[in-house]
């Protein structure tokens, strides 16, 4: 059984025909072609599918797509602005916070949902906000460094590279 839904994703309006049993994640990946959000476990354990819905981080693998209607969905594809990478993305690049990259889209979304409300979040607050995102590569240290750096950049308006003295 299919139904027609109207979704708002990264500022774009989409009218999509989706099977009623699709999750938001399946709709993003297999209907809209937005494959940035990853399908890691499909049961809420890994956080690789994290997206931002109405400003809050949620797991798209366990959100029925119908519940995204009438809400503003943001995915990793929508984080960069017209002027290029977001400070959070630049910070991940500069600190080496992504290795294989599978967890990165979800972590960027969890971190952004935190920083947009609280750019001065400390390391503990960051660790708590990211507790639902597994990373099997980095050991988290560089991810926390990146989010701290991004927070500094977002609250001061300076470039992450400038803050750490990179050319």
């Amino acid at each position: 059984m299919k139904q027609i839904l109207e979704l708002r994703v990264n500022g774009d309006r989409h009218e999509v025909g989706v099977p009623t049993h699709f999750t938001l994640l399946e709709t993003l990946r297999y209907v809209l072609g937005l494959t940035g959000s990853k399908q890691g476990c499909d049961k809420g354990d890994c956080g690789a599918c994290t997206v931002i819905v109405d400003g809050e981080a949620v797991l798209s693998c366990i959100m029925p797509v119908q519940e995204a209607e009438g809400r503003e969905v943001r995915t990793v594809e929508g984080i960069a602005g017209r002027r290029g990478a977001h400070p959070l993305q630049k910070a991940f690049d500069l600190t080496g916070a992504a290795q294989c990259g599978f967890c990165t889209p979800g972590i960027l979304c969890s971190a952004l949902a935190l920083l947009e409300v609280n750019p001065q979040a400390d390391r503990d607050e960051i660790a708590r906000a990211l507790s639902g995102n597994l990373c099997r590569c980095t050991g988290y240290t560089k991810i926390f460094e990146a989010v701290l750096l991004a927070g500094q950049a977002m609250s001061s308006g300076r470039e992450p590279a400038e803050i750490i003295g990179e050319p």
Partner: protein
Amino acid sequence: MKPGPFEYVRPASVEEAIAALEDGGYDAKPLAGGQSLIPAMNFRLAQPAVLVDLEDLDELRGIRAREDGGLIIGAMTLHRELERSTLVAERAPLVAEVMPWIAHPQIRNRGTVGGSLAHADPAAELPSVMQVLDAVLHVRGPDGGRTIPVDEFYLGLFTTALEPGELLTAIEIPPLPAGATCAFEEVSRRHGDFALAGVAVVVETGADGAVARARMSLLSVGDGPVLAERTMASLVGRALSAESIRDAAAITAEDLDPPSDIHASAAFRRHLAGVLTHRALDRLRA
């Protein structure tokens, strides 16, 4: 993996939801935050034919102050709202304390208090917390409404007193009695994981300094929340002391018959229950 096909209905009122559930019988399930139900469906551990989404039922949302100092919490209120509510922090500090222990931020942004209580996962925190707070559950079904004390709500593993077609609509928490203090302790492998064992406790101290009434409930050590009745009785009539706390911890561990699984053996769970009882009561003595 993908869930099997199902019919999705989104009622606009509680009456409509109850009618849809009644129509669907045992094959219909209410959908709250979906944070337990959808993972189960993705792996086909649950295959409801009809999902009745409670999303639009605003009458099931929100935290209201009762005149006597208690609270009424709508079943569809998000974990996140409880976590952020100053009213909850003031009137039900035990609920505020337990929220960060429940899953991860993304899950608390969607999961609901009613879903947690109705799901009856033996490792869930809220059933034990609501039990020690003497909460009363408000339920509505085809034959009208009724109330069920938490002590009578949990019947077994993932099983509650809810009949098919019945919805949990609200949770009523009476005010904390004067002289009452409470604590929550748990052990899990990583922050946000389900508990290996946990304990919620409320102790009411009388004017003479002796414990007048005690409520203690454990999680993840049985089929549902486990009321530690003999421990509660052992605390009453004397002041909390190193000795009474040692006794309480020993009785708690002795009375339990916890399950063994890949996460922890029965013996380890029993040990944890004793240690956590000790820690929680120590905090109340301090």
